[in-house]
């Protein structure tokens, strides 16, 4: 199991082109909360870029649902950390996620029309896949607090739904 976790963390670190939580190190609850919250915020920002850029109805509708869902879950997350008196703690994974999202945002900013739509939706598929992988193999197993774990589990189900929705839109664009 340790080997598997390490491999996964390394794979994610590689795909992010940055530092995932140090291989073998389990993130703490304040770090997990920060990572999950950051992942949501970044997807909302990506969605807002899509809403401003895209003219495709399916793409805009998808992006609007990302804003709606991630804002709703992050509100629940904020309520929970407040209730648990936990202060989300910035960490290398959150920083790597933000860095990767910024790079992607600049890439997408150069595109318009169908090229933008395709690149945005494909990135949404990849992004949700990556976050779901991290939730399943690292964040959920590492979470100590039962309520945090439960919120992450619901989050996983939600993001798996987003991944399928994105895959469906990607098929429509082809």
């Amino acid at each position, binding site marked *: 199991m340790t080997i598997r976790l390490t491999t996964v963390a390394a794979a994610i670190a590689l795909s992010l082109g940055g530092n995932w939580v140090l291989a073998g190190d389990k993130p703490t609850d304040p770090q997990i909360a920060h990572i999950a919250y950051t992942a949501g915020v970044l997807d909302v920002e990506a969605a807002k870029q899509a809403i401003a850029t895209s003219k495709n109805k399916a793409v805009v509708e998808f992006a609007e649902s990302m804003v709606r*869902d991630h804002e709703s879950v992050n509100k629940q997350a904020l309520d929970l950390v407040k209730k648990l008196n936990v202060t989300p703690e910035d960490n290398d994974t959150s920083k790597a996620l933000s860095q990767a999202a910024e790079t992607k945002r600049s890439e997408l900013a150069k595109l318009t029309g169908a090229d933008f739509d395709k690149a945005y939706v494909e990135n949404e598929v990849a992004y949700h896949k990556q976050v779901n992988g991290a939730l399943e193999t690292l964040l959920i197993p590492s979470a100590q607090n039962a309520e945090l774990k439960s919120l992450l589990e619901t989050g996983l*189900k939600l993001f798996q739904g987003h991944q*399928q929705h994105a895959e469906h839109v990607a098929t429509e664009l082809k």
Partner: protein
Amino acid sequence: MNAVRPAFLALLLGTAALVVPAQAETIEVTIDRLAYAPAAIEAKVGDEIEWINKDALVHTATVNGGAEVLLPAKKSGRLLLQEPGSFDYICRYHPNMKGHVTVRP
């Protein structure tokens, strides 16, 4: 005379039961943490389904190429079943949410 009336009434009621279709029902399906419960239901034509969305998320109940009911966060929505058949449905925003309705004539 008194004995005849109840018998006559029973006959009337008996006939009525044969003619009037069974009363339409409302079948409740709850949505909690991205799952329809119960996931599979049986109903008859004329019944209504009421989806009660307990999530703070917008969902739908969407039959592929057919009816769609929008289910706002913490709200419910209804669908009158007009045709018999067997239908799979999903949430359009979260296609990993799956349900099934069997509608008898």
